Every structure is written in structure tokens, then in C-alpha cells.
């Protein structure tokens, strides 16, 4: 009872943002944080349903994943991973700025985080668009015309049938059309770069650049034994569901970050009032966390 009495007496002194049903700012902050962690738990459990579907399908039909992941671009995926990690870094820094009351820095960092989210979705759009154009959907929307880049199905009619001749022809054409084009050999080695400047080297006896290209080709090309596996469309079902649900979370994160920016501009965040930034940060890191698992699971299969 005496506690209640003191609370009532102290009513006029408590900070504006301390809700009445909390005893102290610490208690309010800790309760909020526990609430956010419980929310993140439900998020993880929701995603785990999809991860479970992935695990079961991959255990039963690994060939679908071994084949279909070649349709995805590791470069775009890696770029998005780095973008998201960077946005997580700026978000964590933003929490620090809010705790220290650095309003200008906070607004700047939140804006960078928001921009990173835009870049992430932009890359995702490019990837989805490519899948759409190649008819790489799920169910009846899976109707690709070609095997994935780098995958050779022996016996399949198409330009990829004979890697040896194709490579030589493909090499000769650009060299003839654009003699002054930049060498395709790695620039790190100066000797290799000089060698490949000589146009006929590509069609004549194998020079250093051609050797390098052949090696690269050998490293990248996968000879697929037998026809395309059945039900590759299931991979794209999983791919679109997992990255799609993740993308929805990115969009939700962008909405709350935008809300934070408008609040931060008013300069309301400071050493004893940064919970909103902190909690949005926790959510944003979870979005990053999911992607950290999605990237190797979908893009890097070998």
C-alpha cells in the first residue's frame, strides 16, 4: 500500500513517457524488451514452418535443390546479404546514437538503414522479374525454356550441348567483333591481361587467357546426368514463399523505420527514451537473421 501511495505522490514528477502502470522507466523498458523478444519468438516459429518444409523436401529430394539453385544468381544474393548486414550495422549504430541523444546522427543512420532496405527490395525485384521472364514459377507456372546457366544436360538440344565447340565459337565472336574490347581474363595478373589483348589468341593456339577461361568454364559448368529432375517447381514454391515472406518483413520494417525517422526528427529520443529505436532495431536484426540462413540455403547449394 505504501508503494502505491508514494507512486501517487510522485505522480507530478514522473517523465511524460513513463506509463502509469509501470513503477519505473527501467521496468517499463525491460517489459517492452521482453515483449519484443516474445514477438520475435513467434516470428522465428512462423519462419520455422517454412524452414521445416525446406528441410523435409531437401532430405527427400536433394536433386531438386542441386539442379534448381543454378537458376539463382549468387552475385545478387551475396550483394543483398552484404546490403542487409550493412543495414543491420547502421541500425545497431542508430540505437547507440539514440541512447546517447545524438539526434542528427540518429536520423542519418535511420535514413541509411531505410535506403539499404530499398536497395534490398530493388535487387529482389530484379531477381523476381528475371524468374518471371524465364517462366520460373511454381506449380503450372514452371515452364523454363532452358536449363539453368552453367548446367549442361547431355542430349538436350540447345546451344549448351557441346561445351567445347560452343566455348571456342563464343570466344571467337566477341574477339572478332570488338578487337579493342577489354580482355575477359582476370586483370589481377598483368601478364595475362597483355596476352589476352591479342585478339587471335582466342582462336589460335590456347593462350593464357584461353586456358584461364577453360578452367573457369570447367569449374562453373555442371554436367547434369540425365534429364531435369521432376518437380523442380517445388524449389520455386519454397523460394518464393521464403523470400516473399522475408520481403514482407522487410517492407514492414521499412514502415516502422520511416515512422522512427519522423519521430527522431522531433528529437524525442535520448538516454532515457530510446526504447522504440531499440525495439525496431531488434526486429530489423531478426529480418537480417532470417536472410543469413536463407542465403546459403537457397543460393549456395553444392
Amino acid at each position, binding site marked *: 500500500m505504501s508503494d502505491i501511495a508514494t507512486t501517487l505522490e510522485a505522480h507530478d514528477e514522473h517523465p511524460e513517457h*513513463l506509463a502509469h502502470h509501470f*513503477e*519505473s*522507466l*527501467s*521496468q517499463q*523498458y*525491460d*517489459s517492452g*524488451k*521482453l515483449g519484443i*523478444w*516474445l514477438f*520475435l*519468438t513467434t516470428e*522465428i*516459429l512462423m519462419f*520455422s514452418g517454412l524452414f*521445416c518444409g525446406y*528441410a*523435409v523436401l531437401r*532430405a527427400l529430394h536433394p536433386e531438386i535443390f542441386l539442379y534448381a539453385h543454378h537458376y539463382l544468381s*549468387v552475385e545478387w544474393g551475396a550483394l543483398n546479404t*552484404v546490403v542487409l*548486414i*550493412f543495414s*543491420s*550495422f547502421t*541500425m*545497431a*549504430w542508430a*540505437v*547507440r546514437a539514440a*541512447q*546517447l541523444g545524438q539526434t542528427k546522427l540518429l536520423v542519418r543512420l535511420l535514413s541509411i538503414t531505410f535506403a539499404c532496405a530499398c536497395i534490398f527490395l530493388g535487387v529482389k525485384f530484379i531477381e523476381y522479374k528475371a524468374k518471371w521472364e524465364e517462366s520460373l514459377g511454381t*506449380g*503450372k507456372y514452371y515452364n523454363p525454356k532452358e*536449363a539453368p546457366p552453367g548446367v549442361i544436360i547431355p542430349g*538436350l538440344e540447345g546451344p549448351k550441348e557441346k561445351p567445347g565447340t560452343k566455348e571456342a565459337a563464343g570466344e571467337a565472336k566477341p574477339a572478332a567483333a570488338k578487337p579493342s574490347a577489354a580482355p575477359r581474363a582476370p586483370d589481377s595478373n598483368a601478364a595475362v591481361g597483355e596476352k589476352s589483348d591479342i585478339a587471335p589468341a582466342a582462336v589460335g593456339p590456347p593462350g593464357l587467357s584461353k586456358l584461364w577461361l577453360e578452367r573457369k568454364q570447367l569449374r562453373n559448368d555442371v554436367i547434369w546426368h*540425365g*534429364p*531435369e529432375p*521432376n*518437380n*523442380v*517447381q517445388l524449389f520455386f514454391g519454397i523460394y518464393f514463399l521464403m523470400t516473399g515472406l522475408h520481403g514482407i518483413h522487410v517492407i514492414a520494417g521499412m514502415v516502422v523505420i520511416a515512422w522512427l525517422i519522423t519521430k527522431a526528427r522531433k528529437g524525442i529520443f535520448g*538516454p*532515457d527514451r*530510446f*526504447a522504440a529505436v*531499440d525495439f525496431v*532495431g531488434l526486429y530489423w*536484426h531478426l529480418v537480417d*537473421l532470417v536472410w*543469413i540462413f536463407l*542465403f*546459403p540455403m537457397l543460393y*549456395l*547449394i*553444392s
Partner: protein
Amino acid sequence: MASYQTDSSSRPAAGGQKGDSPHLCEAPSGPYGQMGTVPFLSPAAHAGLGHVVPLWLLAAVFAALVVLTGLTVVVAQVDLGNLNLYLALAIAVVKASLVVMFFMHLFWDRPFNSMVFVGCLLFVTLFIGICLTDSKANQASAIPGQGKEMSGAHTPLGSPAK
């Protein structure tokens, strides 16, 4: 329990606070840190609200995450058989731990939040583990000769012409 009650005594001495030391709290503690009846809702042992992570640590975690991303891409190019999957997952787990501990402050946070998180992961493991064992325990069809292959609507590329 005692540490929650004697909150002010466990607070680092004011003279000992250096700008960016990772274990010291920079936020001013204020007059609000005295209540502590419910253990996991009571004020933190280090007083003040939350923990301010030094910038160098955030940058180091970011650098480590980028390096690990590069590593996982490079490792995936090398064919190690089954090991590839485990290696990729192990790297992902290391990255996730870095994010959870330092970006998400769980390293300095109340242990109860860690309990909630780890408890959640245990349930996820249970969920996926049991589903995996179960999926391997069934055959495709009880009818002999049936269900050996699933048939898709799409004619597989490279399949013999009909």
C-alpha cells in the same frame, strides 16, 4: 535475487566509467532504478536503461559478418560433398550468433530474454527434427509399383521425346 535488490551497489562507480568500455553503461542511471520486486522485470544489474555498445565493437561485428559471408560463398564453390551443407549452416550459425549477441544486445541483456530466445530455438529444433525423422520413415506409396516418382505438369528438360 539479492543482486536485484541491491541494485545501486552493483552499479559501476562513477569514477570508473570510461567512454567506450563495453561493459560499462553510458546511459545515466537516473532516479528510476530502485524498484525490484519481480526478478526479470526489475532494473538491470548494471543500472540505467539498456547497454550502449561501443562503436568499434559494432564495426568489428559488421566486418566479421562480411568476411563470413565471403567465406561461405568461397566454401560453396569447393565440392566437399555432404560437408558443404553443414559448413554453410555452421557459418550461418556463427553469423547469427554475432548478430544476436552484439547487434541485438543479448550479450549484456537480462538472462531471461536469452532464455526466451534459446527456448524458442529448442522448439524449432524439436519441430524440424521430428518432422525430418518422420518424413524419412514413410515410403512413397503402399501400392507396389506406385508412387515411385512424383509426376509434374512440366515435361522435364532433356527427357526423351514422346
